[in-house]
Structure formats: structure tokens, C-alpha cells
């Protein structure tokens, strides 16, 4: 399988609930980033977590990184309808100047 796979592929929740998305990867990384993509639009950077960090917060976002399990999670608390989008993790392995994106989680937040 590929570097950076999100789980679940799709998630539907009610406004106000928390949304958790997971990302697994195969090789060691320098950092892992989460991006958001509204339908038909470009990707917007949300948060970056380095390999020596375990948890990071930004507003309603909380990201964790477990390098022993090669996994990361993105938690969006108190979700809003405007959070409806696809969320992608992207890994920087330090080998080559590039990010490798996962397949994404499609989040739908119902009002």
C-alpha cells in the first residue's frame, strides 16, 4: 500500500460533534502535514507536525503523531457545516523535495 492513507474514506456527522480522521504511512518522515480541500478548490494547509512532536493544536484542530505506529490523527472539535471538505495528510520523508499525499477523508457536517 501507499505512503499516507487516510481512514475513514468518508465521514458524516452532525454539527457540534467531533470529527476524527486518521492517517497511516509506511516510511520514516521528517514531518506530516494536514490539508483541507473544498470541492473543486485548491488545497489549504491546516497544520504541520514534526517527527519529534507528539501533539499540536491550532484553534479547533488537534493533531497527534505516533511515529512508532507510523500514524497521525486529526481531530476537529465542535464541527460546523463549513468544515465540510476533504482532508488530506501529506508526508515529507526528507528524501526528495516533495510531499506525498494520502487519498483523503471526505467529511460532511450536517447542520
Amino acid at each position, binding site marked *: 500500500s501507499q505512503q499516507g492513507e487516510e481512514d475513514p474514506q468518508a465521514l458524516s456527522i452532525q454539527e457540534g460533534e467531533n470529527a476524527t480522521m486518521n492517517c497511516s504511512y509506511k516510511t520514516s518522515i*521528517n*514531518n506530516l*502535514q494536514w*490539508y483541507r480541500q473544498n470541492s*473543486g*478548490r*485548491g*488545497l*489549504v*494547509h491546516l497544520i*504541520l507536525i514534526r517527527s519529534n512532536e507528539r501533539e499540536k493544536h491550532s484553534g479547533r484542530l488537534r493533531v497527534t503523531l505516533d511515529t512508532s505506529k507510523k500514524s497521525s490523527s486529526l481531530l476537529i472539535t465542535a464541527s460546523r457545516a463549513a468544515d465540510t471538505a476533504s482532508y*488530506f495528510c*501529506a508526508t*515529507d520523508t*526528507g528524501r*526528495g*523535495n*516533495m*510531499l*506525498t*499525499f*494520502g*487519498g*483523503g477523508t471526505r467529511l460532511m457536517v450536517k447542520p
Partner: protein
Amino acid sequence: EPEVTQTPSHQVTQMGQEVILRCVPISNHLYFYWYRQILGQKVEFLVSFYNNEISEKSEIFDDQFSVERPDGSNFTLKIRSTKLEDSAMYFCASGEVANTGELFFGEGSRLTVL
């Protein structure tokens, strides 16, 4: 707020035609990228560019593809002879630092090859 701009937003072309997609990265950024996303699929890396040369390219970026920074502001992706499977959304991105920082993406150019 500075942003990456891409033109055209949508291009329809016939198979075998040449296409040039244009990007204006954020002005003080040094690293430039092209990614593509086939409808409903993951975002795939094509090429990275630094100091006027390609620093990394994927298997997708074959001889039909080329990139150029013809002046101090534009960054272009050329597809020499388009194929049906080149139909996708093409995203340009730029970054201040290699690898360790966030990428700033444009809104994309949708290419439809008929």
C-alpha cells in the same frame, strides 16, 4: 494575503495538442511544484523546481511534460502532446523552504482532453 494564481481555470483541448498551464507563485518563495488530481482520486506529485532546475520528478512526469520559469514571476507546465489520461486538475504550489514547511496551493487548472 499573498496567493498562488493559476491560469487558465479550465482548458479543453483535443488529444495530441500542446497545453501550457501557467502559475504565478508567491513572490518571495523559492520552491515550486506541480501536482495533479484526477477526479475523485488522490493528489499526485509531478515535479519540484528550485534554482531554475528540476529538483525532483515522479514517474508521471515523462518526456511529454516540461516546466519552465521563463521570467521572475511565472512558472509553467507544458504538456507536449496531450492524452486522454492527462485529464485532471493541475495544481501549482510554492513554498519558502524545502520539505520542512507548508505549501501554498493555487486553485488549480482543470484540463479536459477530448
